[in-house]
């Protein structure tokens, strides 16, 4: 059998397996890696630093101290306010594919020994969009964190409001903002970590109301999506536009923190806020 050696690739994908079936190719530098290998690097390409998107469970796993996590409202199911059959199907499929009930997981755990409330969104679940249940879980996390007098860390990953839930989803922006206000009145710390992507109704509500706002390198962050902007202004967007580094440069976030540094940075900030909060 004649084998033609590819001219440029240094690693070939395992024979007979499609991308996703155990291996993946870095979207930035093209480097091919086996899944297990990528996990060792927290899903950051060791060659070019590209940050792959993380699921909510992976996020909690790499952020929280082992065995410290206790989930809140884990049994909450999505709602379908207008009883749309296509949406019901979409929800069922998203649940099946992600193994999640909704686009956010909330709960409490420890980061280097610091007790925190935490929320992690998952962009694999209908683009991490915020409908009634995502809004409710974020709101409850803020309320319960206030009750327990815990700081809150939210990992945002969302394309915006969940369109299928109409104005009910839009109103979650106001609901979560009100909850952040109430949490802030308690003098407690809220750290918002913007990951790829954070746009629309999530960026324009609780995501941008953190006392401290961090972002992962290369994360897409903005209000409007880049495609909408391109269609509106009919020109190509500049390189790096709406990326974390761009927002940092324009004064919109406090710092861009590589994934490997995120846990120690969070721990340091939490330590600086330890002790009884001003009430």
């Amino acid at each position, binding site marked *: 059998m004649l084998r033609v050696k590819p001219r440029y690739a240094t690693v070939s994908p395992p024979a007979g397996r499609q991308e996703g079936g155990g291996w993946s190719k870095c979207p930035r530098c093209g480097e091919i890696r086996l899944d297990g290998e990528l996990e060792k690097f927290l899903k950051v390409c060791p060659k070019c630093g590209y940050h792959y998107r993380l699921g909510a469970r992976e996020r909690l796993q790499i952020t929280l101290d082992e065995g410290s996590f206790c989930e809140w409202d884990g049994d909450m199911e999505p709602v379908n306010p207008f009883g749309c059959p296509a949406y019901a199907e979409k929800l069922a499929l998203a649940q099946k594919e992600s193994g999640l009930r909704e686009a956010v997981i909330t709960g409490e755990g420890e980061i280097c020994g610091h007790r925190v409330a935490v929320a992690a969104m998952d962009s694999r679940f209908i683009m991490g969009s915020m409908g009634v249940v995502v809004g409710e879980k974020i709101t409850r996390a803020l309320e319960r964190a206030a009750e327990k007098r815990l700081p809150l860390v939210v990992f945002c990953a969302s394309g915006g409001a969940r369109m299928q839930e109409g104005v009910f989803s839009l109103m*979650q922006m106001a609901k979560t903002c009100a909850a952040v206000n109430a949490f802030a009145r308690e003098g407690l710390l809220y750290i918002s970590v913007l990951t790829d992507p954070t746009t629309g109704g999530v960026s324009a509500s609780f995501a941008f109301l953190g006392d401290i706002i961090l972002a992962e390198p290369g994360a897409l962050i903005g209000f409007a999506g880049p495609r909408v902007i391109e269609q509106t202004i009919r020109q190509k967007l500049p390189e790096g536009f709406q990326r974390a580094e761009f927002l940092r440069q324009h004064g919109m976030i406090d710092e861009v923190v590589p994934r490997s540094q995120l846990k120690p940075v969070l721990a340091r900030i939490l330590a600086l806020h330890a002790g009884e909060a001003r009430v």
Partner: protein
Amino acid sequence: MNYDFEQPILELEERIAALESFAREKEIDLSQEINHLKARAEELKKKIYSQLSPWQKLLIARHPARPNLRDYVSLLFTDFFELHGDRCAGDDPAVLGGIARFRNRPVTVIGHLKGHDTRENLACNFGMAHPEGYRKALRLMRQAEKFCRPVITFIDTPGAYPGIGAEERGQACAIARCLAGMLELKTPVISVILGEGGSGGALAFAAADRILMQEHAIFSVISPEAYASILWQDPARGREAAEKMKITAQDLLAYRLIDEVIPEPLGGAHRNAGEAARLLGEALERHLNEVTGLPIRELLARRQERFRRLSPRVFL
């Protein structure tokens, strides 16, 4: 400018006009027949305008002659004095704000401004605000709080502007802060959706004690065209999306997402701006009297509660 669904009315009106001129010319009395036709036209209008589909309402909501905020400012308020700028970077012409008197009571007025024609629309960016607009709005709200004036916001926008400058200057952050600030404003706030209330850029002015909507206004999470484009990859299916999305004042009232539907003159506000303003003013005064009577603590608690109750419990 007229729409297809208005065609039967137009035809009837044309016949009436023809008969009237014929009667004048020939000096004959056709008043009985003319009055009969006029009554029929009135009936037809009532029938057509009370059964508008969401898409037809959207067309009326976007009608270029529909009264805009500047029209209502001159019809509803006296002593209006416009205030400019966000004290940070600029002044956004898509957001009109100022102080005025409403039936002898000083108020702060803030809202999106749309134009009636292309020239006006270019000047106010079709009512699509930049971050400066949301920051100006928040500044004026805080000023109103200081002087214990009620705030009345008017919503009429396809959405916040999706552009390079808007993103560079923090559109998302500006909207979030406007929303959060409005929710804890220690003065009464009433919002009126005048035409099109599109997405977060509209909601930014709607975190209020009362949300009122004009009869043919719409309020949506995203424009039906964009909904169709994202979900079905086909922006041409906007009409179909509009029917699914529950965007009319009547639907939103049924879901208790808004507090009241303000009637419009027959055929829509653009047929009689004066009458539209009278009906709007009547509702505004009633709600203002109610909210200004409440102690501030109570008012704030109720404002939080109105958004807090939008939870899964509502659907169980």
